[in-house]
């Protein structure tokens, strides 16, 4: 795995005169220099002089310090680290896709438009929502687009509403998005089972009363633009009163936004459009297996109800069907509709992360309706298997079947002064990527485990055996866990000092006088 202890920064390997790229022969006259003198490019301080061999070895060695989905289970809850099929990569790399230009006339990119149209049709059926845009670049960008649709809808009805309700169990992107869209955020408290509380909640320690959904709707009614609700929620549980929640919100004219980060637990089982959702986003890099790429690129399509369709970002793909003569059936042509007077406008320079859309459609076609549903069920069974195997050794946050993920807390280990961070770091020593930790915020010392459908029994058992061993270690040799990891290329890193005295780029060392 880790063959070398250290790979220097490429800048430290730079040697004058080396090159990693040979330029083609110039077959036209050299450029005349028309630049004003002060706009001529001066020198570079960091660009290295290295050969192709150096670069290939540099990135190959660095790669070995990463953990990927192909190394084994990647149990990050909410992140949905599933298998990344290689066919998807191959298709996305077809030159007919990668060479196509976003400003090319529609007639020349019919394949791309057909792809957009087809993927939209899949997402419509999967979510039960008729309007779709594929433009947002990521989940957070989808959220922002969705909230802007809500805003445009209210404005079109002459209403300035200022509040968005968000449960305290929600992803941080929800409140950040609402703020970016100009809204005030009001937090909805959860009940002990992680679902939204209708009643007011009294904090047992401070005695502070937090207003529940019912009170907030009664008090803020016409000020509420909408609510952003993750379903299944971040504890892995279906908001079982979702219909009541959406009916209550709709009764005061508010709209319901669903954070679809966990849609992989619902595909084929339930459709947001059928239970009161007005608008939602999907994460193609979670639910539809497009690779996470060390942080991106993702894609965050937004699906919406009919009443929000007029506000979707421009352009919208349109299919025109033509009767082919002599009974040969029909032919389809596709075009962009830019003439959408109520549209919120553009949310991406072009049409979104198109290469990611190609992978997502390939995933859909491979799975089909039956494969998608089988994947959903398999992910749920896997999560519950982990729940059953680890309960007792770790404290379960909720003692009932969960959907695609299961959340434990560190309360049993905390008795031995072993905390979630120690457990996570110890997993690294055992050759696993840790689960999501300290999220959701409503669970103390949360360990959020999502195996996805990509794991078989053998891998699940090996992971659970390791977790049980760590639980034993926590009792028997607790101090040792504070030192984990010891087998990774580096020990625990001092993030506090890193933030206090940030070094955010390499700088050429100053030459010291002799």
């Amino acid at each position, binding site marked *: 795995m880790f063959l070398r202890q250290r790979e220097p*920064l490429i800048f430290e390997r730079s040697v004058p005169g080396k090159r*990693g*790229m040979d330029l*083609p022969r110039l*077959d036209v006259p050299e450029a005349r220099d*028309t630049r004003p003198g*002060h*706009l001529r490019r001066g020198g570079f301080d960091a660009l290295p*002089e*290295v050969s192709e061999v150096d*670069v290939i070895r540099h*990135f190959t060695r*660095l790669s070995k310090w*990463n*953990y990927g*989905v*192909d*190394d084994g289970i990647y149990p990050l809850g909410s992140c949905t680290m599933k*298998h990344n099929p290689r066919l998807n*990569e191959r*298709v996305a790399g077809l030159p*007919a896709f*990668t*060479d*196509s230009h*976003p*400003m090319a*006339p529609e*007639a020349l990119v*019919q*394949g791309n438009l057909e792809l957009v149209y087809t993927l939209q049709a899949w997402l419509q059926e*999967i979510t039960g929502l008729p309007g779709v845009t594929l433009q947002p670049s990521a*989940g957070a960008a989808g959220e922002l687009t969705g909230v802007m649709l809500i805003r445009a809808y209210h404005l079109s009805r002459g209403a300035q509403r200022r509040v968005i309700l968000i449960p305290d169990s929600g*992803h*941080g992107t929800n409140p*950040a998005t609402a*703020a*970016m869209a100009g809204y005030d955020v009001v937090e909805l408290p959860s009940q002990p089972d992680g679902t939204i509380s209708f009643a007011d909640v009294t904090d047992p320690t401070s005695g502070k009363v937090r207003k529940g959904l019912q009170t907030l709707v009664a008090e803020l009614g016409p000020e509420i633009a909408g609510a952003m609700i993750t379903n299944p929620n971040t504890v892995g549980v279906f908001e079982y009163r979702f219909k009541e929640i959406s009916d209550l919100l709709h009764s005061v004219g508010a709209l319901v936004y669903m954070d679809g980060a966990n849609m992989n637990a619902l595909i084929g*089982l339930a459709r947001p459009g059928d239970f009161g959702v007005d608008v939602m986003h999907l994460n193609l890099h979670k639910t539809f297996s497009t690779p*996470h790429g*060390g*942080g*991106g690129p993702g894609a965050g399509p937004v699906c919406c109800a009919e009443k929000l369709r007029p506000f979707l970002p421009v352009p919208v793909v349109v299919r025109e069907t033509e009767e082919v003569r002599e009974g040969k059936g029909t032919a389809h042509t596709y075009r962009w509709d830019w003439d959408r007077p109520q549209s919120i406008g553009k*949310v991406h*320079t072009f049409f*979104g992360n198109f290469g990611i859309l190609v992978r997502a459609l*390939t995933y859909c076609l491979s799975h089909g*309706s039956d494969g998608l549903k089988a994947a959903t069920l*398999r992910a749920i*069974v896997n999560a519950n298997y982990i729940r*059953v195997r680890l309960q007792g050794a770790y404290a379960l946050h909720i003692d009932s079947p969960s*959907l695609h993920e299961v959340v434990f807390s560190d309360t049993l280990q905390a008795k031995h002064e072993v905390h979630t961070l120690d457990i996570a770091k110890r997993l690294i020593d055992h050759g696993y990527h840790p689960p999501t930790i300290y999220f959701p915020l409503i669970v103390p010392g949360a360990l959020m485990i999502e195996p996805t459908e990509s794991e078989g029994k053998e891998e699940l058992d090996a992971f659970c055996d390791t977790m049980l061993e760590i639980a034993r270690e926590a009792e028997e040799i607790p101090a040792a866990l504070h*030192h984990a990891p010891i087998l*990774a*290329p*580096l020990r625990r*890193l*001092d993030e506090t000092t890193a933030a206090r005295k*940030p070094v955010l*780029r390499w700088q050429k060392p100053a030459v010291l006088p002799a």
Partner: protein
Amino acid sequence: MRYLPSSPVEDQALLDAIGVPDAEALLKGIPEPLRLRRELELPTQSAEQEVAWQMLAMANRNTRFCAQFLGAGAYDHFVPSAIDALVSRQEWFTAYTPYQPEISQGTLQHLFEYQTLICDLTGLEVTNASLYDGGTSCVEAALMAVRVAKKRHTVLVSRGLHPLYREVLQTNFAPHAELNLIEVALKDGVTDLADLQAKLSGDVAAVLVGYPNFLGAVEDLAALAGPIHAAGALLVSVTQEAFAFGWLEAPGRVGADMACGEAMSLGNKPSFGGPFLGFLAVRDAHKRELPGRVVGQAKDLQERLGYVLTLTAREQHIRRDKATSNICSNQGLVTLRANIFMQLAGPDGLKGLAAQNAAKAQFLRQRMLELPEMEAVEDQPFFNEFVLRYRGDYSALEAACLQESLLPGLDLGRYYPEYQGCILWCATELHSRSMIESLVETLARVPATV
């Protein structure tokens, strides 16, 4: 289903261990009236071969070209083979965001190097681990400038900025009634200094200027910086073609306080507009207002050097509604492509490629101007794009080009009514002399319009 690693016996073993007869028994948490009690009306699963053929057929419905003379924010450059080979390593493309630094040093060190090189190209001190694309980078830059400037509510945007970037800005400014987005006119193809001066006031937080601008012209940032700084505003340079950094002085060295834009040119193909690579580089003093992920140096328990995600107190997962932005992901794998590209190119490669781009564009322009229907519009210095007026009919020109498998430049009138009848042309190192000659010959044969 080939992606599900289970056998019926194992499936049963899992269910037995859980203590349920079937998976359905685990779904009781979903209220019955909300369940979908039918199959999705979609095709059923397919073999890899079937899907491969279906997708290939779809891809082939796109028209292919021998050469594309269209830039306008998406540039066709040569991509070295090392890039595809390296990014296809699973350790890079299947890994998650590096929240656990001990098991993600590869991604973190790469991002630290990437940040270093973006700072080098732009001549600024701090950058993040990338933004979505050029248009959204302008939004983040403008909103950041408003935070930095404090109590200033206006952002001026040069009409020379990419028209689609301006549309994305408009979309994102619409929810903020307290903020104004005001356009600064063009004169002779560059930002009109007089109009800029008239619009500068104590309420202006920042001015966004294309460098080069959408029309290909090189804006003199140094000349614009004077009045902008005198008004207490920030100059934000917006570069949509990152190869220009090998030709033009770093914006941070000629007056820009922030530099943002699109860096897809570094190791990526046009890809129908995405995934692309937004960047934003700023001064050190402003770093705590930067949106998005940032990687910094750290030491481990044994004082060994490593890298971590840092300055997270700005971000949504910590600050929630008080965060500098809602952005959570970055364009990870695209940053990797760009980093590999920059390292392969090095200083000589980047400058050399840029010089070739300038040479090809100058040659294309010179040859075109020999055609009677083509006419110079402005005489601004340019990099690899330029505008010419065409006396003929664009659709006839387009048809003739397509017949020869050539994609012509952009019909500018659609975005700039004042440039009706003008075409924005682009040439890069990919355009051989013979391709350029064949374009010129094709244009010479376009039938004259009545």
